[in-house]
């Protein structure tokens, strides 16, 4: 029976024969992840379950990235608990301090996740790895605790919505615009319990970083996973990350989809998610008069080197608007060093940006960029829930790195094309 990507990847990790959506399957896990917010609860549950060792110390990943560098004594205590657990269990891939970065940028870059993997993480944006052809999904700490102990979990095989992107991607448009377009169309609960599968010529032409940006936000439509076929580009990415044995994976022709959507992106404008939900999407022209107090470029959605290059191309020789705070956080140490080598950090600092360490801090209103009441931010992050980045009376707008850089220069939400050619 022809299989969707979700069915095919799960099939690779289960003995049971997958026949279609709704079936419950027990699946062996390639890896299990938790961070400094969710690991402390997972450890508590793990110990309360009576577990004494993790199923494989090489396949449990613990990344301290949300409240790090530690913002206060309580968060320091939490990270200490994770560090102690990692040591006790002999966890090989524990990341903290200068080795750490935003988990969903860090793990792919280290070759720790890749095509055909089935991954669960105590973080909703674990779905990012779908950009590499992995069935990866977020769960709670206790599910992850059981997975850390057993190396397996159960899934309900999801039905799939296929989203095909055709046409010619206009200049200045990026992966973020396509995923915002989709979320705006199907809504924040449009893919609840379902898989999203992305294809079409625009996706085939897109680099792996862009695909991860799109997969990252599958959860913002309620999706279980956001999946891309693993093609030659994916294999080249995996190889460069030091991963061996990666093989291509694609859905079978004739696979059954619950819904098929096609988006012609020719002539599309940059897309902005307006407060207070990711599906409140408008084109940049509709919100171009919105003045913002802060711009944040970073996170597991858009803190990769391609995002920083895009931002730097606009910010080079220009300044952030007076009174606007521009915060740029390269997502991992490797991205940070690459940006340093390419001179991007100097461009950012000359533009008046604060260049911070790799951290999830501002995205979730944790630290390093909290908003006061009445303030507005445009961020390359993935969520704009009320109060997400600080005060309940603040507003978060979401966009890609190009719009973010253009907005920083203009002081109001701005199409990147308006900045090009302007001093």
């Amino acid at each position, binding site marked *: 029976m022809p299989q969707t990507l979700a069915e095919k990847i799960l099939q690779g990790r289960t003995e049971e024969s997958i026949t279609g959506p709704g079936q419950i399957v027990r699946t062996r896990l390639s890896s299990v992840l938790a961070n400094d917010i969710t690991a402390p609860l997972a450890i508590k549950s793990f110990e309360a379950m009576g577990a004494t060792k993790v199923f494989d110390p090489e396949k449990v990943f613990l990344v301290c990235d949300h409240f790090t560098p530690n913002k206060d004594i*309580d968060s320091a205590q939490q990270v200490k608990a994770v560090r102690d657990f990692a040591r006790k269990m002999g966890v090989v891939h524990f990341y903290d301090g200068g080795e750490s970065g935003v988990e969903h940028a860090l793990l792919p870059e280290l070759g720790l996740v890749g095509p055909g993997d089935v991954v669960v993480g105590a973080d909703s944006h674990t779905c990012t790895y779908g950009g590499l052809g992995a069935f990866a999904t977020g769960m709670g700490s206790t599910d992850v605790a059981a997975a850390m102990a057993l190396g397996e979990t159960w899934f309900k095989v999801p039905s799939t919505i296929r989203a095909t992107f055709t046409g010619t991607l206009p200049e200045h448009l990026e992966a973020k615009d396509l995923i915002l377009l989709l979320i705006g169309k199907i809504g924040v609960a449009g893919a609840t319990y379902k898989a999203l599968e992305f294809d079409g010529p625009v996706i085939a032409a897109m680099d792996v970083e862009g695909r991860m940006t799109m997969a990252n936000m599958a959860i913002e439509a309620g999706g279980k996973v956001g999946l891309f076929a693993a093609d030659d580009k994916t294999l080249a990415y995996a190889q460069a990350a030091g991963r061996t044995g990666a093989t291509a994976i694609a859905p079978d022709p004739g696979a059954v989809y619950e819904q098929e959507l096609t988006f012609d992106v020719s002539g599309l404008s940059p897309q902005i998610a307006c407060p207070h939900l990711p599906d409140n999407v408008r084109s940049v022209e509709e919100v171009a008069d919105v003045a913002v107090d802060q711009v944040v470029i970073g996170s597991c959605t858009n803190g990769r080197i391609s995002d920083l290059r895009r931002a730097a191309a606009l910010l080079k020789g220009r300044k952030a608007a007076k009174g606007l705070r521009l915060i740029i956080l390269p997502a991992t140490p490797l991205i940070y060093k690459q940006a340093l080598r390419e001179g991007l950090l100097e461009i950012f600092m000359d533009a008046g940006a604060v260049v911070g360490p790799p951290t999830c801090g501002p995205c979730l209103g944790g630290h390093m960029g909290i908003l006061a009441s009445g303030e507005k931010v445009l961020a390359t992050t993935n969520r704009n829930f009320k109060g997400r980045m600080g005060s309940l009376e603040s507003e978060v707008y979401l966009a890609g790195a190009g719009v973010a850089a253009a907005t920083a220069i203009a002081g109001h939400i701005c199409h990147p094309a308006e900045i090009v050619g302007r001093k």
Partner: protein
Amino acid sequence: MSYTGAARKVGTNIDTDAIIPARFLVTTDPLELGKNCFEGLEPGWINRVQKGDILVAGPNFGCGSSREHAPIAILGAGMPVVLAHSFARIFYRNGFNMGLTLLEIGDEVDGINEGDSLEVDPENGLIRNLTQNKDIPCTPVPPFMREILAQGGLVGYVRRQMAG
């Protein structure tokens, strides 16, 4: 086991940041989290809640992050049951794992008024609005998930399984 309590209503697409904002995630203590429950929706909202109240929510309740602190905060605030139009996926699994009873009742949510006295029997799928003298149709919680709830959540369930 059945529950009786007053309805405490919240709206549509209530996300996990609204249930418990990130700044409170520096503890895993249920009572501490419970004190700040819904602080991201409306400061002080939780002060209206009495132990045993029943949370009634609109569509897509619990969307957003995977933080288990959200169901823990609701339990910590003394609310053992949530009736919602529908739940977000991760929250649904987390709720049962933490021992929080969740029931999806679709548009029936709209007929429940703030403060209505409700009686909920998850095993038999019986919900009665005592104030309006009206039954609300509902699918019972499946036996496997009731077993998890009976053990106080997944931890107790796994312990029991391991004990054979």
